[in-house]
């Protein structure tokens, strides 16, 4: 067990588990690996204010608090990779079919999103001093407004226990986080690339407003998406530069 003293904090309802974690970090930093989970959150968030669609009690919502001060700017994206890999492996165990990672860290099954990650880190002196890793996994929800969303239940026709799933996720995450702490970057990158959604498949992208034909060839060390274009160009794209059209 990597996180010897970590706590698991179960909440019925909170604004968001990430906000609760941020409050804890500000006031009384908890032990490394502490997990906060909630039955429902009324201000669940995707990135910068986008709402996260979740019905009370139906999904796995949690935040991990870790202190990865072994990470600098050059290798910070590995934290995203290991979280995504832990979730991917968990989903694959449950669903028993291929689960993929849509760059940078959405979890995809049958072309639909089943989970997402929101990481908020604090930096001082060029090192990542703490990180709040927010995870939302669609567990038992049956109805979604978006046609591009699904749940473990929809994929398996079974009802899942959120607490059991949390324990399974904690075990997966701890194992991947230990690889990260041990500096096993090559293995992590290989696993991430092996599960990258639409790797090597020609498709259309919106690149700075221009529609281009390209295919994903991998991800750079710093997390940028590498594309090989139909016209021969090779691109390395940040999140706001490119959008997958699928």
């Amino acid at each position, binding site marked *: 067990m990597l996180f010897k003293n970590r706590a698991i904090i179960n909440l019925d309802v909170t604004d968001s588990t990430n906000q609760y974690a941020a409050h804890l970090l500000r006031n009384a930093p908890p032990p490394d690996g502490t997990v906060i989970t909630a039955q429902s959150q009324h201000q669940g968030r995707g*990135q*910068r*204010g986008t709402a996260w669609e979740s019905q009370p009690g139906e999904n796995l919502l949690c935040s991990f608090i870790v202190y990865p001060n072994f990470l*600098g*700017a050059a290798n*910070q*994206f590995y*934290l*995203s990779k290991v979280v995504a890999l832990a979730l991917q492996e968990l989903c694959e165990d449950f669903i028993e079919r291929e689960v993929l990672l849509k760059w*940078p*860290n959405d979890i995809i099954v049958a072309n639909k999103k089943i989970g997402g*990650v*929101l*990481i*908020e*880190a*604090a*930096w*001082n*002196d*060029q090192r*990542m*001093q703490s990180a709040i890793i927010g995870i939302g996994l669609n567990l038992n929800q049956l109805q979604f407004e978006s046609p591009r969303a699904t749940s473990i239940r929809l994929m398996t026709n079974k009802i899942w226990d959120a607490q059991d799933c949390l324990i399974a996720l904690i075990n997966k995450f701890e194992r991947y986080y230990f690889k990260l702490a041990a500096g096993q970057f090559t293995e992590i990158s290989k696993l991430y690339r092996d599960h990258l959604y639409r790797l090597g498949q020609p498709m259309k992208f919106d690149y700075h407003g221009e529609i281009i034909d390209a295919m994903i060839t991998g991800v750079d060390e*710093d*997390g*940028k998406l590498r594309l090989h274009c139909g016209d021969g160009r090779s691109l390395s794209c*940040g*999140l*706001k530069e490119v959008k997958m059209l699928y």
Partner: protein
Amino acid sequence: MNITQIQDLIKFVSKSGVSEVEIEQKDFKITIKTHEPVKKGQEIHQIAMPTMQMPAMQMPVAAPAPAPAAPAAPAAPKEEPKSNLIEVKSPMIGTFYRSAGPDKPAFVEVGTTIKNGDTLCIIEAMKLFNEIEADVSGKIVKVLVNDSTPVEYDQPLFLVEPN
């Protein structure tokens, strides 16, 4: 032409080896002059943009701001920050945000007193939201980057007058 385009233009001119570029549009003129000989990676320029609008520009630097240079003005070294001011630099490449969300107040403004550990800004890199904490104590004298714009590694973000 926005700030990002100007920054890109400066980088382009810097790398191209030319000594002067002048662009004039109907209500906008910019002259970028480099020193001779241009060294690789050198980024010292005099920018003259008398009619350029500067939205979201912060309060003047503690030192007197230079008068707008006439297009024909000779190239002069970029004004260095006052020696007692500390530059807070970006630890990474990403997108600079001054607040925690679109409807949230800025972490710091010009004049805000900061101490070690206070959050100054967020730099988003590949969906990782990085709060950048102060490692100095003092007062914010200038915010050097506009909200929601890309920043490079080591790019100065704030000028701080240390305690």
